């Protein structure tokens, strides 16, 4: 350890402000970059899921209306026959 104690370490020969400002800015920048990348990945994967669910819902609704139409036309036919 080059420095005798913590206070001289923090003081950095009088240049503490500049040294710690640099290290702080660098750490902060890298941290922000990493956080953005990491949380983007999460958000993207959730987006894929919600889109999947949405598509499934649309499909189910389409099938429902298709079967509803089918039964409606089937009814019409039987009605037509009875008449």
């Amino acid at each position, binding site marked *: 350890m080059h420095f005798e104690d913590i206070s001289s370490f923090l003081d*950095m020969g009088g240049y503490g402000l500049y040294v710690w400002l640099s290290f702080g800015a660098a750490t902060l920048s890298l941290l922000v970059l990493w956080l953005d990348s990491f949380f983007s990945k999460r958000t993207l994967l959730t987006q894929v899921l919600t889109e999947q669910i949405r598509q499934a819902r649309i499909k189910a609704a389409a099938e429902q209306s298709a079967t509803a139409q089918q039964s409606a036309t089937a009814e019409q036919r039987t009605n037509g026959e009875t008449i």
Partner: protein
Amino acid sequence: MWKWLHPYAKTERTYHLCQRLLPWFSVLGLAVILFATVWGLAYAPTDYQQSEAYRIIYIHVPSAVLSKSLYSAMAIAAFIGLVWQVKTSFMAMMALAPIGATVTFVSLVTGAAWGKPMWGTWWEWDARLTSQLILLFLFLGVISLYKAFEDKQQAGKAAGVMAIVGVINLPIIHYSVEWWNTLHQGATIMKFDKPSMPTEMLWPLLLSILGWALVSAAIFLLRMQNEIIQRELRRPWVQNLANKNASLSEGK
């Protein structure tokens, strides 16, 4: 000779490669950067000229070196994408750009913070800082151009062209700024004289550069995955991935 690269034109292959490499680069990168930083901050000897302020070198030099390397990497990715029409290459290019911009920004801030005790001002138009500033603009230009397009195919090609125009100009800009600096500096000497580098100072510096490179690579792998997911949202393999991911987190 480059046949081994061909499978990686497919996004799925590349995504899984990134996934496999990610833990290694992240852990190694974090370890090396922490180790080197602590070494440089606390254990390296003092410089007789610049006292403790010189320790900023352990951030300023790695970030400056990385900024130029990342721009070159971005330009290479652009070149590969443009010449061989490889989509994943454009994705790599755009994954690199924000990292490059961040690292350039750090080099500017640390340069300014180093300048204040050394020259008395927070900003000085010396050749190195001015070149870094222009490099930041080049990164931001490529990113802005990419974001301006709706169609990401177009976006990739356009940003690729600008990346290459930038890389061709980079040596010209660097040379002209250096020359401009000598014109206007007059009698003052080159300000960023590296302190005479005994090995006890050099090793932590080299290690820091390695650490920064590894961390940048790790973040690149993450961002590359993000680019891939964004572009391949509808593909079944992405859907499976999202499902697996969800079930994993639910399992927790």
